[in-house]
């Protein structure tokens, strides 16, 4: 592999170089730092294999989440006498990531604004209206958290929030359970 050299290695230098360690372990904090840097740049995805394992049914759950929002909207519309909320077309269609992100941003802003309006009127609302508004808001929050967990199965904050939301009321058999670390989603 090596060519002949004009200057030969002395036996001492040759032996010394041969004994030099070829590897050194990085500091304990290096790996987390490196992973964070790569995640921040979108070069790796936490739980990437998990995400790909669920890829087959993530679109079905996306539709289910959209339908949950839709159902909540219909319920609210019927109860309040207004028009039902439409299913956002791009959620179901093949939109690119940028379009979907724009949709989430737009509908998220509208969602937050609507909740703000409800909160502003809470003083004059009846207990039934308040309960209904809260129920609808919780439905959409639950659907959002499901999507967050599917988007990044390693997102422990979203998983914890979802687990709290899905915690069954006392005496109610659990239908959905979400656990953290390792993340297991079961139906």
């Amino acid at each position: 592999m090596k060519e002949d050299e004009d200057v030969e290695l002395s036996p001492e230098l040759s032996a010394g170089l041969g004994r030099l360690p070829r590897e050194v372990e990085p500091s304990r904090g290096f790996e987390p730092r490196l992973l964070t840097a790569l995640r921040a740049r979108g070069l790796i995805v936490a739980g990437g294999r998990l995400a790909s394992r669920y890829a087959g049914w993530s679109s079905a759950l996306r539709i289910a989440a959209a339908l949950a929002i839709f159902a909540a909207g219909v319920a609210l519309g019927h109860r309040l006498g207004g028009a039902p909320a439409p299913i956002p077309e791009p959620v179901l269609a093949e939109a690119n990531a940028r379009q979907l992100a724009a949709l989430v941003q737009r509908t998220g802003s509208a969602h937050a604004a609507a909740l703000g309006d409800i909160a502003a009127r809470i003083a004059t609302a009846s207990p039934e209206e308040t309960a209904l508004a809260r129920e609808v808001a919780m439905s959409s929050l639950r659907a959002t958290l499901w999507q967050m967990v599917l988007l990044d199965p390693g997102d422990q904050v979203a998983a914890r929030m979802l687990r709290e939301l899905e915690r069954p009321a006392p005496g109610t058999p659990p239908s959905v359970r979400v656990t953290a670390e390792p993340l297991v989603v079961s139906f």
Partner: protein
Amino acid sequence: MRIEHGTSVTDEELVAELRETRSESAFRDLHRRHTPRLLQLILRMLGGADAEAEDLVQETWIRAVGSLSAFRSEARFGTWLVRIAIHVTQDHLKSGRRVLVGLHEETAPFARDSMVAERMDLERVIARLPDGCRMVLLLHDVEGYTHGEIGAMLGIAEGTSKSQLNAARRQAQAMLEGGRTRGASGSAGVVS
């Protein structure tokens, strides 16, 4: 594609999975296989500036993962990584942001007959070589690359690699001789 990771999984399979799914798990396996070697090489190329070596390893991985599409499987992944690490280190050395610490500082005398002392002497000698000479010596005499490979990695002619190696060996041997002479007369440490 989904791979159960273990020692039997090749770098190329992990790279393919990382490319396909951006799998953190695949990346972690690659990192654990290659980082110790990369870190040691960069540490020596910097001349012992250990405060910066991990930053450069991180930059190496960022560039490598960001340009995985450029990796061709006919090359060894480890060699491809070393090439990126060399570019990262060269950029850093040219930037003048280098912090010289550790091996350049005189340390308390070791027991002169210990293996550790010999190794530290040699590390100091390597650290004191000019940048170009040091890189060629490390790549040829420590890492085992040919002058053709080194030329391609460093962007220099094969002949330049050979002459740098000659200069590096000459200087290293002179420094070791000088250190031994001083050591025999009662002074610890290697001098240049």
